[in-house]
């Protein structure tokens, strides 16, 4: 069994198969050509929406700028305010606070100590007042 160890020859001549770039360019061209009929078709299909008012229908009432303003701006804002109040008022009534996760209240944790609650803490006796140590912050 013999193996062909000679290096493969690279031909620079154009081959019969179209390159990938040429295929992509052709696809883009086809896309561009299709765009116009698609847009035209969509407009034609939508044309009935711009048709005249049917004869049986009453003429539409004129909407004033104020009414439009109320409908588009004011009422959504009022709705937003109501929803916000519905969310925050019960929390505020319960005495809750709105804080971010980083500044969330720290639960008391004892490690290697008694399970004494804050309210149960007694005043230090004179003997225990002879304490040492240090204070600091970071």
């Amino acid at each position, binding site marked *: 069994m013999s193996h062909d160890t000679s290096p493969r020859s690279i031909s620079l001549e154009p081959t019969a198969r179209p390159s990938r770039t040429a295929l992509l360019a052709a696809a883009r061209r086809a896309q561009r050509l299709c765009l116009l009929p698609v847009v035209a078709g969509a407009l034609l299909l939508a044309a009935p929406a711009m048709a005249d008012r049917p004869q049986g229908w009453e003429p539409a009432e004129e909407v004033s700028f104020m009414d439009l303003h109320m409908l588009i701006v004011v009422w959504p804002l009022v709705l937003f305010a109501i929803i916000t109040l519905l969310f925050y008022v019960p929390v505020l009534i319960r005495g809750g606070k709105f804080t971010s*996760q*980083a*500044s*969330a*209240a*720290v*639960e*008391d*944790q*004892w*490690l*290697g*100590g*008694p399970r*004494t609650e804050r309210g*149960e*803490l*007694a*005043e*230090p*006796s004179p*003997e*225990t*007042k*002879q*304490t*040492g*140590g*240090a*204070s*600091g*912050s*970071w």
Partner: protein
Amino acid sequence: MAAGELSARDRAVVDRAIRSAEQACRYEFSLFRGAVDRDPRAFAVSLHAALAAPERSVLIMVDPRARLLEIVTGSEVRRHLTDVEVELAMLAMQTAFAEGDEIGGLRRGISMLAEHAIPHETLHAKHHGL
């Protein structure tokens, strides 16, 4: 440094550090982690007074939200663990806390406090009269 509660894993790490510190120096170590709503030193001293044996105890109080750290040593512990040595341990803890490594800082601080609190045996040299 997260202000929330310590996770079970973190608690286990600190618990181990406390246990080995207590074994090393035979003093009690306690950590209180919570919000301080009054004078930090007075609060830490009252926490220390609430311990079972305050004279033989070291209390570390951390308020991660207010970034406060207090270390209280009992009267008996003070004989071996000076305030300067406590400050050294506190400095190490502050450095770690500032880097956001609360558990590492606690471990290191507790270990340093225990090392300094180990009672030094007094060597009574026998006088052999010549």
